[in-house]
């Protein structure tokens, strides 16, 4: 799309209203206005508009505003151990969460209620190999083991690790580094750096597209062959996000032996960035970036700020084209599935309205044409009711999905009643299983899910197909914590699918693992299955310093052993993260569930 000559001058007309023109720009604009009726009308309309807004009625704040602020400030200065929890209800709707953060200062990890080896969150036992899909253990059997029979002792840490565990370092392969524009006039810059050194891998070119901008990245995923990074970047505090994809290299081809067909050569140059669309910034459901196992397709979701709701989109690296897959206003992209006897994978697409339902949807027709703007319910390959946005584990064997009643929130959807994540096996083509997601169970095994429950949460699988992390969990029900607020939006919950006890309150990372008051932006599970790379953002400082984010590596321990945490990437005024891992190995066709 190119800008016509009037549109080019409209920006100058707009800037002229608040004196933001250079001398050259003013001369150019005046010369153009002399001979252009249309732009003179635009100037008059914009000037009227500015007068109308400036003349909006001034409204006096409530008389008790000062008293409320004073109460809040004085309350903040009271030591946390002297604060009754009931006071929070009088000081503002958001303070219940503050209460949780203040009262949950207990070090949970050393709890005697959770000794090592008793259905604990220990990640030390051998997990399933990446090529061996796991089945879920029976619920509430003590040891989280894939090999031991129920009742046998928990495998000890010295048990022989899998090759993947031996070889995998905990550090991420790549990290996105973003330097925002500063008040001193520095323009923003954007790099991809090595996860374990200071090396700059790539300085991508600015995104292409008339509305493309870059801001702080808040989500990122690397294609499984390591050739593309997809990102969600935040457009400052504007409430809008951009979805971007950058071609980072020829790829590590970690699983090239398993693939009979070579990856098609992408037409986009290395370092090129493509803007895939703008979206309302919202819940983690909108930040899902799903790569197909062959690295050809990316699926993502855009929430249209003009009111048409949410729909799933697809980007094809083979052609560098992207398109709107659905046109129903309540669809979310979830995960890709390799379809037997087909070269093109299909996409789980979920619809939010009514009974949440997921539809396995073809993205290309048999003759290679794109499937565009469809209702995924019209002609699905597989249907799964009461399943929303299933996140399929990297080996394809398991899924974490959501169920509950969703409600429309502006231009997106979140859970309004009974929302909760569930863990299940994933057998989309196994008719004998009776369901595409059999053996479903609550992910948080110690929570009572009532009408008031989760609104949303961010969830990430580890590359081992066993470990997973949950964070930014927004809970609207009553506090169910035995040791502090639970669930707590400010905590990271780290679990393993093979843990028969399920995910529990004491699976939260130690609060001391991460900087106090910093907010969690993104979490990735290292291939080791026991390390997390956590991206945290600094609170707003009063000096208008640029947004800052750091990456922390947290090694999870249990029992009396405290977690270990250290900074991986930090720098003043630099937004480090998200991190990405490659090596999302594909399922060995010989062991895949038929």
């Amino acid at each position: 799309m190119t800008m016509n000559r009037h549109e080019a001058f409209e920006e100058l007309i707009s800037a002229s209203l608040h004196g933001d023109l250079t001398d050259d720009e003013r001369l150019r604009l005046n010369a153009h206005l002399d001979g252009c009726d249309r732009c003179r009308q635009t100037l008059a309309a914009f000037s009227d508009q500015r007068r109308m807004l400036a003349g909006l009625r001034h409204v006096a704040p409530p008389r008790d505003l000062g008293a409320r602020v004073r109460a809040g400030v004085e309350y903040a200065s009271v030591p946390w151990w002297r604060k009754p929890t009931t006071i929070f209800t009088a000081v503002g709707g958001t303070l219940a969460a503050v209460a949780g953060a203040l009262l949950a200062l207990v070090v949970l990890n050393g709890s005697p209620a959770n000794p090592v080896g008793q259905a604990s969150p220990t990640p030390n036992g051998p997990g399933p190999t990446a090529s061996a899909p796991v089945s879920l253990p029976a619920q509430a059997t003590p040891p989280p083991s894939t090999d031991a029979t129920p009742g046998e002792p928990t495998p000890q840490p010295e048990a022989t690790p899998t090759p993947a565990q031996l070889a995998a370092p905990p550090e991420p392969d790549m990290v996105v580094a973003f330097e925002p524009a500063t008040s001193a006039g520095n323009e923003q810059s954007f790099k991809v750096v090595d996860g374990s050194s200071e090396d700059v891998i790539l300085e991508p070119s600015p995104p292409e597209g008339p509305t493309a901008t870059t801001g702080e990245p808040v989500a990122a995923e690397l294609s499984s062959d390591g050739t593309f990074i997809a990102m969600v970047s935040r457009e400052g505090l504007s409430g809008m996000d951009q979805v971007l994809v950058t071609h980072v290299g020829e790829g590590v081809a970690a699983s090239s032996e398993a693939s009979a067909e070579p990856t098609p050569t992408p037409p986009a140059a290395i370092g090129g960035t493509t803007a895939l669309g703008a979206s309302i910034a919202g819940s983690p459901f909108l930040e899902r970036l799903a790569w197909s196992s062959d690295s050809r397709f990316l699926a993502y979701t855009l929430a249209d700020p003009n009111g048409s709701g949410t729909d799933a989109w697809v980007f094809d690296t083979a052609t560098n084209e992207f398109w709107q897959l659905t046109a129903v206003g309540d669809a979310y992209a979830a995960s890709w599935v390799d379809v037997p006897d087909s070269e093109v994978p299909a996409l789980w697409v979920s619809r939010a309205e009514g009974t949440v339902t997921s539809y396995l949807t073809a993205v290309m027709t048999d003759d290679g044409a794109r499937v565009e703007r469809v209702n995924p319910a019209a002609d699905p390959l597989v249907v799964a009711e009461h399943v929303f946005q299933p996140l399929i584990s990297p080996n394809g064997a398991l899924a974490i999905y959501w169920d509950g009643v969703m409600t429309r929130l502006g231009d997106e959807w979140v859970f309004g009643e009974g929302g909760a994540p569930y863990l299940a096996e994933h057998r989309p083509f196994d008719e004998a299983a009776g369901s595409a997601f059999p053996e479903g169970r609550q992910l948080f095994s110690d929570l009572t899910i009532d009408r008031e429950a989760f609104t949303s949460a961010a969830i990430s699988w580890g590359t081992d197909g066993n470990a997973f992390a949950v964070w930014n969990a927004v809970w609207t029900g009553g506090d169910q914590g035995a040791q502090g607020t639970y669930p707590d939006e400010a905590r990271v919950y780290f679990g393993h699918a093979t843990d028969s006890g399920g995910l529990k309150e004491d699976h939260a990372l130690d609060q001391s693992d991460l900087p106090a008051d910093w907010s969690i932006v993104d979490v990735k599970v290292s291939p080791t299955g026991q390390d997390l790379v956590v991206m945290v953002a600094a609170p707003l400082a009063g000096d208008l310093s640029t947004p800052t984010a750091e990456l922390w590596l947290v090694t999870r321990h249990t029992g009396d052993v405290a977690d270990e945490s250290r900074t991986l990437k930090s720098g003043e005024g630099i937004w480090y993260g998200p991190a990405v891992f490659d090596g999302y190995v594909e399922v060995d066709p010989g062991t895949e569930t038929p």
Partner: protein
Amino acid sequence: MAVPDGLPWDVPAMTRRPEDAREAEFAALFEEFSSPIYNYVLRMVNDHDRAADITQDTFIKAYRKLDTVSEATSTRSWLYRIATNTAIDDMRRRRNVTTMSDDQPTFANRADSRPGPEAQVMAATLDERVQRALLSLRPNHRQCLLLSDLEDMSAHQIGEVMGLSYGAVRTLLCRARGEMRRALAAEGFAR
């Protein structure tokens, strides 16, 4: 700067503790900015109670971070940045954005509760019509227009508040003005 009558947190009350310069500084900040911040947020969210909650949270956050303010000239941008962030956070979290109660005093009713468009345009005050046009804009367009035209901020200051570069603000403002022009036309303002 207009300050509501009977504000219980007035400067004299705070300066009864002269040893606490921080308290006095904050009281002055509240006196100068509480009303404009409240109005800015009110125009953003179109709900008096939520605007009050967001303004309250803004000043509580500001109090906690007051020590980090380094330049007096940027205090205004900093406060608006906190307010913007808090308002966006509120908009993300609110659960019933489409079911605003009828007894809630607002500038503009929801579209589906209006009478016919013509009658509505005739009946509404100028203020209501402008607010209704504002509400139809996407949030980032609404923000930058309010900061520019209601708060009279420069593109540079808007960039500080919204975390955008100077060039991005100019582009965003132009798009916002174009969108607002169409929205005002739908409200019967022909030009």
